């Protein structure tokens, strides 16, 4: 760079002096920083929240009381549609990211205080569920393994009855091809199995507490803390954390108590 006169040179140094340490940030540095890790948790968490909306809506179709016909129709769509199947890969990736990052954070945060307090009155400064996200997440993970074993594995890798074999429902939309009768599977899993129903209800209770902190926490992580928006986000978070787990909990309960036909 050629400077026309010394004045320009002086001006250049005056300006450049302000940037004593030049900015340098790789993707790795960004996502391994404490804030980057929060952002990963928040983004994957919000994606999983969106997944819950879809999952809950499709499953709630058992409440049409049509022997699961509407539910099986849409369950077949979710299981066979190419775009949904591609999204399923994304869902697994985000689930794994959320779980692995969560466990890594739990471990790092645990190490940041090698000697614990003999007396710690944490209940006066924060909510127990905000401090127990690792524990609640682990409970959800245990539930998730059982849940996948009950429904996802048989639906993907066989072992589930087709509707034609059951002769209970026929789905004209799929050219009378036998489709997985997930509704029959639900009946099989929940009816007469009180313990399974209890475990599922406990699983969604863990989910409710996890969401109660996670929903609003994600927005704080993205930098949204605002006098007008934050109260709305908190209300929406509370509503979401109650409604979605409640609808989920009603499914095994309704089948166990024979509320749906």
């Amino acid at each position, binding site marked *: 760079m050629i400077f026309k006169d010394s004045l320009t040179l002086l001006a250049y140094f*005056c300006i450049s*002096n*302000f*940037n*004593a*340490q*030049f*900015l*340098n*940030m790789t993707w790795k*540095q*960004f996502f391994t*920083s*404490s*804030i*980057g*890790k*929060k*952002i990963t948790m928040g983004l994957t968490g919000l994606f999983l929240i969106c997944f819950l909306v879809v999952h809950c809506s499709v499953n709630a179709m058992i409440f049409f009381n049509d022997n699961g016909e509407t539910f099986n129709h849409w369950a077949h769509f979710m299981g066979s549609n190419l775009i949904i199947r591609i999204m399923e890969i994304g869902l697994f990736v985000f689930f794994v990211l959320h779980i692995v990052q969560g466990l890594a*954070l739990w471990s*790092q*945060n645990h*190490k*940041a*205080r*090698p*000697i*614990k*307090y*003999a*007396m*710690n*009155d*944490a209940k*006066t*400064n*924060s*909510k127990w569920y*905000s*401090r127990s*996200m690792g524990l609640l997440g682990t409970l959800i993970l245990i539930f998730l393994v059982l849940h996948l074993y009950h429904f996802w594995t048989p639906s993907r890798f066989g072992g589930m009855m087709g509707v034609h074999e059951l002769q209970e429902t026929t789905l004209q939309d799929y050219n009378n091809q036998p489709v997985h009768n997930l509704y029959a599977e639900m009946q099989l899993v929940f009816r007469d199995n009180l313990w399974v129903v209890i475990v599922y209800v406990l699983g969604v209770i863990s989910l409710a507490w996890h969401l109660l*902190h996670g929903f609003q*926490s994600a927005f*704080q*992580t*993205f*930098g*949204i*803390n605002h006098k007008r928006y934050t109260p709305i986000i908190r209300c929406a978070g509370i509503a979401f954390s109650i409604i979605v787990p409640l609808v989920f909990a009603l499914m095994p309960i309704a089948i166990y108590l024979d509320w749906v036909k």
Partner: protein
Amino acid sequence: MEHYSMNLTLKVWKQKNSRDKGGFETYQVKDISSEMSFLEMFDVLNEQLITAGKDPVAFDHDCREGICGMCSMYINGKAHGPWSNNTTCQLHMRAFRDGDTVVVEPWRSKAFPVIKDLMVDRTAFDRIIQAGGYISVNTGNAVDANAIPIDKKDADDAFMAAACIGCGACVASCKNSSAMLFVSAKVSQLALLPQGGPERESRVLNMVAQMDKEGFGNCTNTYACEAECPKGISVSNIARMNREYLTAGLSTEE
């Protein structure tokens, strides 16, 4: 207000140096006035220990008027004791009753190693400030004080953030030992003002990098820091720092 004197049982953390394992010592103090500050009560204890030829309890203190941030004590499971928006020196003994047992511990964090007894090394905070908590000012004639117009709201928010005294109660109270509230207050007070503009992006990146290097934990938004902060620093500063970090981190080209 009711005046009374009290006898207390103190369980105080004693530790020779950073390598010592340390443990609790039990002391009895008598005729403590409800008018005393918590540190004055410790002065009475130390007089008593020195007279008896024993090792006094080492604790940090400086201004004793609630603005220096030195008096780091974890009292009965809470940073700076039971009162909110308060430092240990401003905690008065009327917070306790005759016959109470009081447990006193140092801040617990890997980034704040214990020097002796209740004193911890908080130079990690100094290194975070050195990494970017400053502004560059050209020498020359003094600029007129009100030459740069600043929005009232921004000025107020910057002042609120600048109230941080760097005591470390946020780190001590956080279940993750995270320093996010401290760092975000320091980032905010400069990011909100035009004088902080030139280093705005490098500041937040460098300060966060230094914070992570010091071994503080990661923030999980429990907001315990805000509840225990003696100066009432808001977690909205953490949201601002997240915004600053996102903007700076995603816009750099190197």
